[in-house]
């Protein structure tokens, strides 16, 4: 039994930073049995639609349909956060990369682990209510670890997408399986690590597989029975595009357009194995009934010779009609990407100033390039891009057989990590990686369900790696503040109405920053990499902050298995 729910006003050995925390660790643990048992309750569409103003629950992977990760409860704030301390810690059975966004419904918390396992916990005590261990099939083909980033909730069910490419509905009260649908064939390179999004009776899900020669998609399933409602292929049958020579920032990408055209004449449109995974949740604009998501890299990652054209809609922001899955608009950041500097971090809906200063419905996306891109929601067009949040060198040097150095490295910039927004301050907060790499290209046909990179990205030994937390003014594109971290950052970030920003680091630090200026107001060391997005909720009139500390495969941070909830008292 490696799992335990601890009520710890004390008992955690890693607490640091404030005297109040130091005092707390000396107190005795209270038994979990003193807490009342609780029963999950139904989640209505109205609750999901109004999540942005819900200061008790955390109903969406990224807070609400706009994906701002801005929590409206201000009980924990800049004045008292120094007194934040662990309320409880829950240890899962899985000591492996932990990327879950805890979901909280009326005092019940749902978390997932690597290998597609789910726990329901009492959010007040950490007591386990039920546990679902998904029976993975023999074939799993995935990149970057056996991760899972969480569940979606609707009515009396919770929804999980699994490493072997299934969509599973569980009874929220018991964890018993209600239905299961095949999303795609894992032997062809498909897998699932993202949390689904549920809206208006539909379960929306993308796919991993951009490193496997798949044809990416977003699918919608009926939340009641798992029946497929529509499929949008992220790679259209005509993927060639406009032969763009410059990226979204106007820099030349050094494409050999004539060579590509010659190849296209020989092999035809490469859409069937062109990749285009969708790693993270779509934002939902309820007013216009449209969804917005970003599409990942073309396959193979580094070898463009096998895939002539712009490789639409890879490396793009895409918008669809929610009811039909029909295309509305897109914007491509990098055409014919050969660096895997694609689009992964979930887009955010927020009002922004356009170029004339007028307030309009906008979209933000933080790219692996290190820029925050600001779009017009109407037609996906680009309004501006931010200052680079990480060093950029030698862009866009083409990969070579010997290996060419270029910054950012292939993990970004901003990886899959969701950003947060404080709309009052007009700031978005992103966590970044700085990993100098060489990009090497080789050419080989698709190896049938095996990793297909078309070369290698290699971290350069001896060169410093680091990370940062960056606040960007999305109305100007200027960096407002930046705090450097000793390791590259992957995980996620949460802003709150208390004027705070929470995020974790590979070295186990979990910190609260002042949203206005980046001052560090509180630090806790979790003993394993904090590489998961934090959530917040309230039970019994008390606000909590919760985060997973289990390390991360991609940056190989120290593994663990803890879900830690913090509160004041």
């Amino acid at each position, binding site marked *: 039994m490696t799992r335990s729910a601890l009520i710890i006003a004390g008992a955690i050995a890693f607490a640091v930073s404030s005297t109040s925390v130091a005092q707390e660790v000396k107190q005795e643990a209270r038994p979990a049995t003193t807490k009342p048992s609780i029963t999950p309750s139904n989640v209505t569409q109205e609750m999901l639609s109004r999540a942005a103003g819900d200061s008790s629950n955390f109903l969406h992977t990224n807070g609400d349909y706009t994906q701002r990760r801005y929590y409206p409860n201000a009980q924990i704030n800049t004045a008292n956060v120094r007194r934040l301390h662990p309320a409880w810690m829950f240890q899962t059975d*899985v*000591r*492996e990369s932990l990327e879950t966004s805890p979901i909280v419904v009326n005092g019940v918390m749902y978390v997932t682990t*690597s*290998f597609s396992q789910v726990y329901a916990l009492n959010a007040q005590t950490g007591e386990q209510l039920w546990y679902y261990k998904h029976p*993975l*099939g*023999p*074939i*799993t*083909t995935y*990149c*970057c*670890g*056996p991760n899972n980033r969480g569940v979606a909730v609707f009515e009396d069910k919770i929804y999980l997408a699994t*490493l072997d490419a299934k969509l599973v509905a569980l009874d929220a009260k018991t964890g018993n399986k209600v239905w299961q649908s095949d999303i795609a064939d894992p032997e062809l390179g498909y897998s699932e690590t993202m949390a689904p999004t549920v809206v208006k009776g539909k379960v929306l899900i993308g796919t991993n597989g951009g*490193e496997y020669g798949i044809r990416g998609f977003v699918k919608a399933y009926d939340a009641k029975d798992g029946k497929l409602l529509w499929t949008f292929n992220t790679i259209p049958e005509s993927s060639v595009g406009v032969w763009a020579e410059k990226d979204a920032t106007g820099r030349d990408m050094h494409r050999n357009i004539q060579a590509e055209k010659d190849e296209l004449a020989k092999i035809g449109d490469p859409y069937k194995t062109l990749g285009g995974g969708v790693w993270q949740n779509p934002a939902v604009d309820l007013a216009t009934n449209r969804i917005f998501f970003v599409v990942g890299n073309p396959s193979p990652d580094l070898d463009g010779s096998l895939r002539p054209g712009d490789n639409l809609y890879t490396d793009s922001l895409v918008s669809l009609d929610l009811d039909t899955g029909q295309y509305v608009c897109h914007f491509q950041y990098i055409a014919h990407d050969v660096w895997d500097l694609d689009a992964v971090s979930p887009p955010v809906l927020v009002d922004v100033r356009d170029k004339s200063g007028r307030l309009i419905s906008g979209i933000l996306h933080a790219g692996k390039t290190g820029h925050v891109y600001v779009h017009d929601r109407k037609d996906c067009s680009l309004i501006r891009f931010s200052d680079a949040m990480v060093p950029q060198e030698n862009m866009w040097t083409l990969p070579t057989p010997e*290996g060419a150095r270029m910054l950012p490295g292939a993990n970004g910039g901003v990886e899959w990590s969701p950003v947060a927004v404080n709309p009052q301050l007009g700031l978005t907060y992103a966590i970044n990686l700085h990993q100098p790499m060489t990009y*090497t290209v*080789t050419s*080989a046909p698709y*190896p*049938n*369900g*095996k*990793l*297909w*990179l*078309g*070369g*290698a990205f*290699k*971290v350069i*030994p001896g060169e410093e790696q680091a990370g940062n937390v960056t606040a960007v003014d999305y109305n100007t594109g200027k960096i407002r503040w930046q705090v450097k971290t000793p390791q590259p950052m992957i995980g996620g970030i949460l802003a709150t109405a208390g004027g705070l920003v929470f995020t974790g680091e590979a070295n186990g630090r979990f910190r609260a920053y002042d949203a206005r200026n980046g001052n560090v107001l509180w630090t806790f060391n979790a003993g394993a990499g904090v590489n998961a997005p934090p959530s917040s909720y309230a039970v019994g009139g008390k606000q909590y902050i919760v985060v997973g500390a289990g390390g991360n*495969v*991609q940056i*190989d941070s120290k*593994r663990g298995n803890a879900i830690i909830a913090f509160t004041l008292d």
Partner: protein
Amino acid sequence: MRRRSIAITLAAVLGTILPTGGGQAQALEEKAQLCAACHGKSGIPLQKAFPVIWGQYQGYLYLQLRDYKSGARKNDIMSPLAQTLERDDMMALALYFSQKRWPDLQQPGAPADVAKRALQANTSVGCTGCHQSEYQGEGTQPRLAGQSQEYLQQTMMDFRNRTRGNNPGMTDLMLATSVEDLEALAQYMAGLQYRAGQ
């Protein structure tokens, strides 16, 4: 030549056993006896150049059989054997061996300087991104911890010089890694202990 004649004989025997359908458990046992000719009756291979398959993951073993049959992976013994197998046969055989206990080859842990070099190489190309923490593998990613050092070394070199062609991604990563680092990795991974999967 001797290898080829063994392969033909085994393939003929496998072919007579596998399609029969009835008495599947017995048929599997009989097939496994054939495999034991190289991979060992107790899971310890007869030669150090042969891999441990007992306790290896079903998904990985299945993909290798599939690739031997398609020609994506080539081996004088395994390729003709795989020609006699259908997908269900491959899955059944793979499951059978995956449920066996991983054997202890009694390989010593790597000395500190070798381990340090191996860990540094992993930092550079990210082996454990697929092969998992401590190289324990999962699903279609093979367990490398405790595998035969000689087999590991040879396999990484085969990927590097494209002798083994069923995973060009591995070829790219091996080419991005020096031969000295690969030697360190082989010694380090061989000396790691088995740990149960998730």
